[in-house]
């Protein structure tokens, strides 16, 4: 009798040869699912050519001590003031910008110009950290020993915060940094937020 029953449940053993023709309805869904999977795949390479947001970056390994020294040099070169005890640094448009993460601070505060491209380097000198730019919600992983150089073009002015979003110990929630974006036309480093802060804190 069982041989005549067309359908079985998933806990009954089927005949030895279960490779049988698929019903039209099921075949339709298989092809829809396959087609959609192809779209999902194609979007990623496509966005590398057509889209403006990719996590590619310029990637190198770096000794934490060497990175720390590079950040110190960068701060010395372009510091324009301080903000809440943190150096404010205004690098020229198109330059390499170095941001250091450590338990539990982002160093330095950056002042960038809207509309200009920078190479923003991220690295850590101790454990993993997470770069999360608020309120834009741009997120990157920061790994010790690796220099992640991202070409970024700030497109709006204002104050942005960097939240650490990778657990890095008990002071994780204290780790907040800042990026100030000023109007490109007014010139960097000479006015705007950096100048005010320099006066206020010194």
């Amino acid at each position, binding site marked *: *009798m069982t041989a*005549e*029953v*067309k*359908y*079985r*449940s*998933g*806990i009954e*053993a089927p*005949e030895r040869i*279960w490779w049988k023709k698929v*019903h039209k309805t*099921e075949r339709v*869904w*298989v092809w829809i*699912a396959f087609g*959609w*999977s*192809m779209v999902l795949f194609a979007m*990623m390479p496509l*966005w*590398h050519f057509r*889209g403006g*947001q*990719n*996590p*590619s*970056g310029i990637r190198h390994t770096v000794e934490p001590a060497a990175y720390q020294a590079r950040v110190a040099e960068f701060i010395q070169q372009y510091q324009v003031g301080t903000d*809440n005890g943190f150096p404010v640094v205004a690098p020229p448009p198109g330059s390499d910008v170095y941001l250091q993460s450590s338990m539990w*601070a982002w160093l330095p505060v950056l002042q960038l110009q809207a509309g200009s*491209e920078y190479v923003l380097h991220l690295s850590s000198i*101790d*454990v*993993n950290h997470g770069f999360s730019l*608020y309120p*834009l919600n*741009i*997120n990157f*992983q920061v*790994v*010790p*020993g*690796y220099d*992640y150089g*991202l*070409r*970024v073009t700030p*497109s*709006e002015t204002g104050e942005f915060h960097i*939240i650490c*979003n*990778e*657990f*890095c110990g*008990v*002071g994780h*929630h204290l*780790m*907040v940094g800042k990026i100030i974006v000023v109007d490109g036309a007014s010139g960097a480093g000479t006015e705007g937020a950096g100048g005010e802060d320099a006066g206020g804190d010194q």
Partner: protein
Amino acid sequence: MSAFRTCPSTGLKVHGQADALIKANAVAATVALLVGGVAAILVLLTRWQAVHLLEATMFYRMLTVHGMNMLIFFIIFFEMAVLYFASAVLLNARVPAPKTGWVAFALMVVGTLMVEWTMWTGRADVLFTSYVPLRAHPLFYLGVIFFAVGALTVVGHFFAILVVAKREMTYDGSVPLVTYGALTAAIIAAVTLLHGAIIYIPTFLWSLDMMGLDPQVYRMVWWGLGHSSQQINVAAMVSIWYLLAALTVGGVVLNEKVSRSAFVLYILFISMASAHHLLVDPGMGPSWKVWNTSYFMYMAVMASMLHGFTVPAGIELGLRLRGATQGLFGWLTRAPWGDPGFSSLVFSLVVFGFVGGITGVTFGTEQINIIAHNTLRIPGHFHATVVSGTAMAFMGITYYVIPLIFRREIAFYPIAKIQPYVFAIGMLIFSMSMTFAGSFGVPRRHWDTTFTGAPFRPEFSPAVDLVVGVMGVGGLIAIVGGAMYILVTVWSVFFGKRMAPDDSGLGAVGRGLPPGITHPPRALEPADAERLEDRGWLGPVPGTMILVLIFLAAFITYYFVNWKLLSFLWRVG
């Protein structure tokens, strides 16, 4: 060898050692669930910023406890029980090496206790992922190694049971689909646990200062364990969908070829699914990321979409064949919604697909990950997959395992009947509001999102406070649902009314037994198939076809909305 009993409900021959090993692993899983659940309450009441219960150190400690107990101990112990069930019980087979089974169980228990000790005594405040160079006590890593070796032994034992069953011809034809699905889970488990060994042994040595370890390499290999273990969950969960469909409504398999091929796709295309945790990492380039996210084809996603069709279609067809033929959705209104096994199955399927699946594939896209990585969107996603999906399915099958394997009636049956509803609704509210909060950039794994004491203090919009409050309420409802589950199962197993060996419960009314046992779906007859209507391309399952097209529309919409949101950001590359 005479240690077999015949199940009065199913007629299957069950080996006494299989019974015992299933019970031991299921009880261990429930204990882990209880511990992880207590931690869940504390974590939730701290993340709910208006309550903010714990201090920072204790919060991260409880978050570690929650992650390890839920994602490793609860789920893998339960999966060990599933493996014994799907092999020895479904195939009428003996357990060939019971001593090995108990040694493996003991290893897993010892490993668990080592990890628990380091966590509770503050020697492993490194969270579930324990990213190097955060450092835990060496026994934390050694405990995980013990646990993984024990689990790997059970996987080997499962393969041995299949070989013995085949050689001793305990079944006719091919293994049932549920066993086949469990087999794919076991193969993925072997790959996963090997990754576990590859990463935890060096990390153990590193914790003893015996070798160096690269943080990026750690992240890559660790996720070979961390994400692949979620694929064991998926394969086990889908197997349980087929199992619950069979037990509750006599769900059928439309086509063995399609369902089995979909399981094979899991093995081939999610073998090392660590890539989408590293999409915004500095160690890998775009081609590595694109290739390893999708293996060019997204075939594992396709596999889930196939099961997402074949399981409801099997339910629809099973009901239609038994006379529920009215209209497009008459089978749904005739379904046994009061059966906790059936309601769990439906919630597991729907929330896993609509919330967990869609968000997971979207966030796991190379570029979209920029607006999702390490925000609350990620735990929002995986609470919809691994909790509302896998844990919900495991809860559903428990209501059958208690009478069929533990031979006890379900205590407080009215509570058991509504438990899936409470848990599913709570988890749905919780995971959706978590996902929503994450899209504002609220970070995951964060003690204080008001940033008290920080040099700069970003302020989230008032909408975020509201959403986080809703998340808190949803989480509490889910915790009530989880507590109901633990109360029912623990009480049933230890104090539930015993069932006599020949008691099938057939036709019983008012006893603590699900309808799939008291009024099981009748056996199909050849004439049933003739009653089916074939509606053109909608075929014999028009209701399911409409439902999956709604699913596809939701998927496409969410996916492209996220691309649009991404395109508003600063240029970055």
